[in-house]
């Protein structure tokens, strides 16, 4: 499906989501509270069939965090980007690990790097950082580490 068709299809069942067509793919902004049903619909809808989550990350915008999900369909070869705005002081979002299994590792990475809590995640622990780094979120913009960071 092209960008326009995707937009029409998604507006049908999710009128609340907003779109941004600036980049190469269709960007969809979703509210955190309707995020999980939205993603389930993307995955299981016959016409969309977004079965391949190829990138899951988070961006720190200093005022808020944004979760970014890059989805693709191995059947129809169309892509979308789903974005969810999160509160920076208490970021919480539903996990998608049961929809796309790859999210389990990616969410663990985001959890330790940005401190986003994934609700109902099967195994939310530190993956890359050693013990004792809970609560420190190295990829946030205000992270300071005088020992391990070298300022040029």
């Amino acid at each position: 499906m092209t960008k326009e068709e995707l937009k029409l299809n998604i507006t049908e069942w999710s009128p609340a989501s907003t779109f941004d067509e600036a980049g190469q793919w269709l960007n969809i902004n979703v509210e955190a509270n309707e995020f999980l049903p939205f993603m389930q619909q993307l995955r299981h809808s016959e016409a969309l069939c977004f079965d391949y989550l190829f990138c899951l990350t988070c961006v720190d915008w200093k005022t808020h965090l944004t979760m970014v999900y890059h989805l693709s369909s191995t059947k129809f070869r169309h892509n979308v980007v789903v974005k969810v705005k999160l509160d920076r002081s208490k970021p919480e979002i539903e996990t998608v690990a049961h929809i796309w299994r790859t999210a389990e590792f990616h969410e663990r990475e985001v959890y330790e790097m940005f401190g986003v809590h994934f609700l109902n995640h099967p195994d939310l622990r530190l993956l890359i950082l050693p013990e004792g780094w809970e609560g420190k979120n190295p990829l946030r913009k205000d992270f300071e580490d005088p020992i391990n960071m070298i300022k040029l």
Partner: protein
Amino acid sequence: MYRETEIIKDFSTDGNGDMIINVGPQHPATHGVLHLVITLNGETIKKIEPHLGYIHRSIEKMCESLTFRQFIYVTSRMDYLSAHINNHACVLCVEQGMEVEIPPRAQVIRVLMDELTRIASHELWWGAMAMDLGAFTPFFHAFREREAINDIMEETCGARLTMNYNVPGGVVNDLHPNFQKRVKEFLELYKRKVHEYDELLTENVIFINRMKGVGVLSAADAISYGCSGPVARGSGVSCDVRKIYPYEIYDQLAFDEVLETDGDSLARYKVRVKEMNQSIKIIEQLIDNIPEGDFVAKTKNVLKLPKGEYYQRVETARGELGVYIISEGSTMPYRIKFRSPGFSNLSVLDKIARGGKIADLIAMMGTLDLVIPDIDR
């Protein structure tokens, strides 16, 4: 004297005879600092839990303080076996925002180098995997061909592994005058020696028995776990970025996407071996048809990307590498995310290894082709 209790306490953890064993961070089969905590029942694997981060350098954070010209060189250190392809992904992503036309000569040079890198990477994988399985000789035979590629790289790019040959707009310097001759010599060497690979491993009955039916990954799981590259293609999932979302001149080249449907280690092995032949095919098409012209487009000295988001996916030797740049209009990226193929491919290990033997784990890790700095970034 005899400390029976201590020994028994050490070996068994929960009273039902399970044994927890640490493979890595220093272990001959992990090829790097991967740490796997394995729960064993006898020789049978019950659970695998990867512990990462031993070589995490936080490249994403580093890139936030480097300019768009500088950060490319850091990415060579992610997947060091396909360093050129990593750089390629980064420059393609930067070029999306630059509105510059890449000269055709530069495109062909980049693709040629990509494919040479791919062969070199698969060559190393082949030898190292054979060594993991206990056959030491193939390792040296594979390195003989790989060394020929490295010499070509050294002559043209000035380095053997982390070439740093790509710049936004083209490549650093023109091909070495000897390049075509050397590549043809390599092609001839490869064709003369490639049958040894079959004789030493592919047709060997011990090898086939070690690989067949080991670590079966279904197509649905491969998609769900986000696998890419030869791992997914071994399960019959068509995911070659060069075919599906072609970049550079890949849409003008004749080559096949290698697919196997068994999903076991042998299928993944076959995909990689056949992929080497496809890369040879691509190089043969291009080596006599390198267009004349500039090798780099004129670009501004200070690079600024317009505000926006850029995503570029390329096919490295290990799978799909994604570079996600968010620019705020300055000379440095606001945020960079590298979607590394190894990270997703590693997550499938627990799924496919359960119920196998320790020796199977070696075969599976070998055919997943993990490069640890790529996973840790």
